């Protein structure tokens, strides 16, 4: 893996920035160069949120991308807008609990993850982003589960054990 360009998009509040940040953090722990670039502004008003993550063995010049090795969409507007960004043969992750439509392209690898349903089954729909994160790690191996768990230990330090357990279970829930 030389350079992996990734893009995550969804409604504000779905935790898409968290997915990207966890991957960036884990990749850094693995000694990689990373950039994490979130959208910003008064997103709180029901708008969309997205972020770009680049992971590389060498130093990264532009943190902006126009095509991606991995696109993850958590809502329909994001699918419509960003499906075209996926490089041929590369990955598209679709949250099929929220998006009933299928991808239109057949030259890419699309994974449908019913993230919200799985998370609900584990007791809290809010962990849908962690389910998606787990699916991405499992299918692409962009970072290791070990590194992600390490990140979670740090970010959830001081949180209730039940919260930590929920997120860890969510991470490994998809197969």
């Amino acid at each position, binding site marked *: 893996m030389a350079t992996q360009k990734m893009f995550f998009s969804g409604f504000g509040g779905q935790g898409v920035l968290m997915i990207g940040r966890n991957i*960036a953090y884990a990749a*850094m722990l693995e000694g990689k160069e*990373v*950039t*994490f*670039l979130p959208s*910003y502004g008064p997103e709180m008003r029901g708008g969309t949120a997205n972020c770009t993550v680049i992971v590389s063995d060498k130093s990264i*010049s532009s943190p*902006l991308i*126009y095509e991606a090795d991995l696109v993850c969409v958590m809502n329909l507007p994001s699918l419509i807008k960003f499906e075209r960004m996926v490089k041929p043969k590369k990955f598209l992750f679709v949250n099929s609990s929220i998006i009933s439509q299928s991808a239109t392209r057949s030259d890419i690898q699309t994974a449908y993850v019913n993230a919200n349903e799985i998370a609900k089954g584990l007791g809290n729909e809010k962990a849908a982003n962690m389910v998606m994160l787990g699916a991405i790690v499992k299918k692409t191996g962009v970072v290791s589960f070990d590194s992600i768990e390490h990140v979670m230990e740090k970010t959830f330090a001081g949180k209730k054990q039940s919260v930590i357990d929920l997120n860890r279970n969510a991470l490994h829930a998809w197969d």
Partner: protein
Amino acid sequence: MSERVLMKGNEAFGEAAIRGGCRYYVGYPITPQNELTEFMSREMSKRGGKFVQAESELASINMAYGIAAAGGNVFVSSASPGIALMQEGLSFICSAELPLVALNVSRGGPGIGGIQPGQADYNQVTRGGGNGDYHIPVFAPASIQESIDMLYDAFSLADEWRNPIMILADGMIGQMMEPVTLPEPKIPVSEAEIAIRKPWALSGTKKGNRSVVKSLRMQPNDLEKHVEKLFEKYRQAEKELVKYDTDRIEDAEVVFVSFGTTARIVSEVIDMLTEDGIKAGLIRPISLWPFPEEAFSKLNPKTKVVISAELNMGQMMTDVKAAVCGRFPVRLINRTGGIIPTSLEIYERAKKILGEYR
């Protein structure tokens, strides 16, 4: 070396300032630098410093003037329209020769403009938006690590030159995250040391001299003499504070000039052009004032065109043209309003331009 941490630009600015000797921070909310003001509101008092949320940027810069006049190492930050409001104060501070560090996390303009990243404050910060003859050294980082290094050094630099130092970042650097290594904290100047280290500062006549901080000079002769003295300092600064980077300019047929985040995108464009067999290079001004004119003397005669790539309508191009001095054609690739071009867009536009000169 300490370990790498993943930090958001805005928070890294604050951490670097504190480690660099900042004891006082004054701010007022404005996007895209709010996380810095928020970080300082949490951290300053914990780290032995002081935080003030001012009622406006007009107040911020004048509180900073007061802090600097009293000998404190002070940091102010804002974004474009807020920096505009500070111009009167900055002019005053330059005349009074006070050290201060100011950060502009810039966005699109004019007017209230927008909140996405921009570089349209180039003229505002390099020309000095306030009245009178003065200069402020301006440095533009292209990464979070570089921002950290600049802010870490900025406080001692300001003290040394007794002048404001401006860092021009933008919304992209402020909002993004990158792994960084943080420098060891410096020991900040304590209030007790001020009288000894800064005898010109206001700490009371008991220190043995009387300090007056001022900019009023009613006699034209006095004012002229004062301005000439300031300019001796600026001329020195023009020699000593110039900073830039170059990449592959030795045999380049197209040379980009670009600063800050745009320069990072251009770096990728240079790789893309190189793959096509086109020799491309980059001059990245790190100090915007003084502008690195000397870098342009290194351009080879085979250079066909110089392209200024910026997020505004070509403000830096004026300086580029002056530096190129008619030796090569100078063209512009730009976006504005908060739009950042992708490497693909710059690449395509550059190829088109190059086609005209080949």
